[in-house]
């Protein structure tokens, strides 16, 4: 008998894990709350560090999930743990008895409206990283009209205790550098500034991207947080910041300001977590059995986690995490789950 595995979330992590588990021969059921798959990836144009089109990566992921039972526009109505399995009622009326559940609920982008001093939603020419990607994808955004001076604000809703987001979102530094280059390509005459606290360009080729941005594109990096933004009568923006290298306050007039919204735990993921009374750590992301040795196991037996449900990750990290989760699920379903007599003891020893 093939074990049922329910995967919650049709973003990169959910897709990758579905594909792997399907290949292993399990009966995979993937649910996604939106009408289409891909999560944030579907809204992105190109990916750092190489500028690969996001569509390409996503369609590759979707192609490999052939055979997976997919329900879009579906959420969880109720979920409860039986002796070993999970009984899940879906909003489309179907009930699934699942031997393992993988939560790949992903993240929400920090709501930049909350950082009111930056004026998102108040001033016309303040946009977010997601808005800019949408512009690259569609080529139209009323707010972007041949800007001559463009600013990027790093760490909006990341590493900011005041807005309740202490952790680093990992991806925004590289995204900002990538987007700065892209915007410079789109508007070659424009001056581009990046306001950063410090740059965390840790991944392979990320540093190259950063150097290229400076040398080839003339993007100016200013170390200092933006304090506040105000609007001139003509709609241009006045940005007040501190240049901590020069130890001086700084005031710049810009035509466009891009806020690098960070990652926050996803609200719909939290709703699922609440149904299962899952432990959430102080940062809002789900707790794992062990951050080092068992990063894909939740505190409940048979319940697995993958991707940014357990904290900010880059796309390659998310995919690797999903594969790891698939292996963990396979191990659980072959080593622990079938042994009905010793199940409890095995869970104690090996979960």
């Amino acid at each position: 008998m093939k074990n049922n595995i329910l995967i919650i979330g049709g973003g990169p992590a959910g897709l990758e894990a579905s594909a792997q588990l399907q290949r292993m021969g399990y009966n995979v059921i993937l649910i996604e709350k939106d009408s289409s798959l891909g999560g944030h990836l579907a809204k992105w144009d190109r990916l750092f560090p190489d500028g690969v089109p996001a569509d390409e990566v996503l369609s590759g992921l979707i192609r490999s999930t052939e055979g997976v039972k997919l329900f879009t526009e579906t959420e969880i109505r109720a979920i409860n743990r039986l002796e070993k399995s999970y009984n899940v009622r879906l909003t489309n009326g179907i009930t699934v008895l699942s031997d393992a559940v993988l939560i790949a609920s992903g993240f929400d982008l920090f709501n930049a409206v909350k950082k009111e001093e930056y004026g998102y939603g108040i001033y016309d020419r303040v946009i977010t990283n997601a808005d800019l990607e949408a512009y690259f994808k569609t080529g139209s955004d009323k707010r972007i009209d041949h800007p001559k001076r463009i600013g990027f604000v790093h760490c909006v809703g990341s590493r900011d205790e005041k807005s309740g987001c202490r952790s680093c979102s990992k991806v925004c530094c590289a995204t900002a550098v990538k987007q700065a280059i892209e915007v410079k390509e789109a508007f070659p005459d424009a001056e581009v500034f990046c306001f950063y606290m410090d740059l965390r360009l840790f991944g392979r080729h990320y540093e190259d991207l950063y150097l290229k941005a400076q040398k080839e594109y003339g993007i100016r990096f200013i170390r200092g947080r933006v304090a506040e933004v105000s609007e001139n009568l003509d709609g241009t923006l006045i940005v007040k910041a501190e240049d901590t290298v020069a130890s001086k306050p700084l005031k710049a007039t810009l035509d466009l300001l891009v806020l690098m919204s960070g990652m926050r735990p996803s609200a719909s993921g939290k709703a699922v977590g609440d149904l299962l009374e899952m432990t959430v750590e102080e940062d809002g992301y789900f707790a794992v059995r062990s951050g080092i040795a068992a990063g894909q196991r939740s505190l409940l037996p048979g319940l697995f986690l993958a991707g940014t449900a357990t904290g900010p990750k880059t796309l390659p990290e998310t995919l690797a995490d999903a594969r790891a989760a698939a292996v963990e699920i396979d191990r659980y379903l072959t080593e622990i789950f079938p042994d009905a007599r010793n199940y409890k003891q095995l869970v104690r020893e090996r979960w």
Partner: protein
Amino acid sequence: MTPLNYILAVQAADPEVIDRIPSGYSHFVIPFTIGITFFLCWIGVGCVRLLAAIPRTDRLRFWKSLFIPKNIVKNLKDLFGDCLFHVKIWQRKPLLGYMHSAIAFGWFMIILLGHIEVALFVPARLNVTRGGLFYPIFYRYFVWMNPGHTTLRGSFFFFLMDFFLLYILTGIALAVFKRFRSIVLGMRHTTKPSLADRIALYSLWMIFPMRLLAESFTADLSGGSFLTVGVNHLWHFLFGEKLLFTPFWWAYSICLGLFFVAMPFSRYMHILTEVLWILLRNAGIKPHHPRKGVAEAEIYACSSCGLCLDACPMNVQKKNLKYSSVYFIRFLRRHNEKKINAIADKCLMCDKCHALCPVGVDAPALRRAQRITVNNSLPYEYSYLALAGTAGAAAGLRPYSAAAERGWTRPGPDSCPADTVVPEVLYFAGCMTHLTPRIIKAVEKVFKAAGVDYAFADREGGICCGRPLMLAGKTEAAAKVIEANKRMIEESGCKTLVLSCPICYKVFKEEYHFEGIKVVHYTQFINDLIASGKLQVSKSDEKIVYHDPCELGRGSNVYIEPRAALDKVGTLVKAAKEYDESVCCGGSLGSLTLDNRDRAKITEASLDNLLVNDPDTIVTACPLCLKTFSETVSNSKHLLTDVKVKDFAEMI
């Protein structure tokens, strides 16, 4: 000693009361006499020292205030209201109010009536050389009622004495009960008593039961009313004809003596210090030092009642109890510098402990005074002050430097250069409002709709109003900032200064001392615009809850105007606690050291307080509250409520 002393025969002249013991003395009075003597010496020396530490001008003001009729009335009102009846506690927690006033007012009446009785029946004994110190206290021991000659007047006093004794005993019973189940009396947290507090507390508890015992044992000799005579019959029933009463008078005296010896070292010092503090407070004298002079009166006037524990917004977390005002004051008393500084810096300065304090101890002011001792002397950079002028010029106001050359006068509208404006109204947004640009947008929209002739003083940015510096204890730096802003504003020639930040409003109103310029908060200004018909608004069904910002409500006493205006645009619903009981949003810049996570807890509690009646919208009139609430309202716990957070001007 023989327990009954009938050496005096019934006399023909028949006085109602007869001095049973001609010497007017018995050994049992010694503990009490020692205690009260020690206490009176202590308080005498203390008063002299305290008054000596007050600056001369303040001292003169204090003496003068005692003779100003208006002040006398206020003093009397406050002394009776705060010290004896505890009106402020009654208003909030009736049972607790009853407890405190039973003990305070009851005891006061017993002492007063005791002295009146002596004055009426054995007036000679009021003389200190003839036992005046203790005789009225132990009056019942020393006298013998002439049976059959009791007048109505005598019975009346007997009744009153018994009545007030019973009144106190009920208060004591509640106090004992409160030690175990304080929540019944409306207190979630109570103060942890120190050793001296415990000694004084337990002796205080014992004083009145002992008095009842002592007086009831002698009630057949010295008379009594429903309580003492009733209990006396019980003793006779239990112990027979002869009653041994002296031990109870000893116990009563010992309890009193113990209490008075412990009193100066315990919280009960407040009983008398309160009087001095209220007089000083009503004379309008402010503390200059966190521990000396007026501050000392304040510190000793604190009764450690612990009402500030539940009031303090930090105490949503039990670990923060130690930062409450009551402990701050206790450590000030003990000169514990390290703890004092930590506690002084932690406070949000929301002023709620001050607003709710039964005797009006201004602990936030003491914390500020403490911060001054540490922070005022730290170096400070003033180069940015010139920005006040350049910002003013950018807003089209008269240039700042020209003003300085003219020698600091306020010229009329005609004497200004052609390219500058002399607005009727000057709007000063302040730093915090600049961090919440939607307030600026909304305010400007309202001004335009009402056709207000205004200039925006710090559109291009300006300098701080000075209040945050004052809160941090940097008074000198604040004075410099205030001076720079004051010039810019006075030179503008405006008639009205409108502030959208309560922090600015408080300092502009209290510290700038403008002449001829009206300082108003935008809630007041907009409310006036609506009332005078200049601004048309329409009412909607939106359920609004209004959050009183600390600096506007408790800080500046503006409660009515924002509500009046909001009532015209929506339906106001109540918060669990509002007006002077409103809960700080947690974002206050008053605290120098409070952690963001602790603040988040306060914000959650403050939101819970606002959301009790399911409002659609939370409205506040402070950029800091707005920012704090907006950032939190969609977080974690409040995820499922779709309540909006709006600024006052956005609603109009």
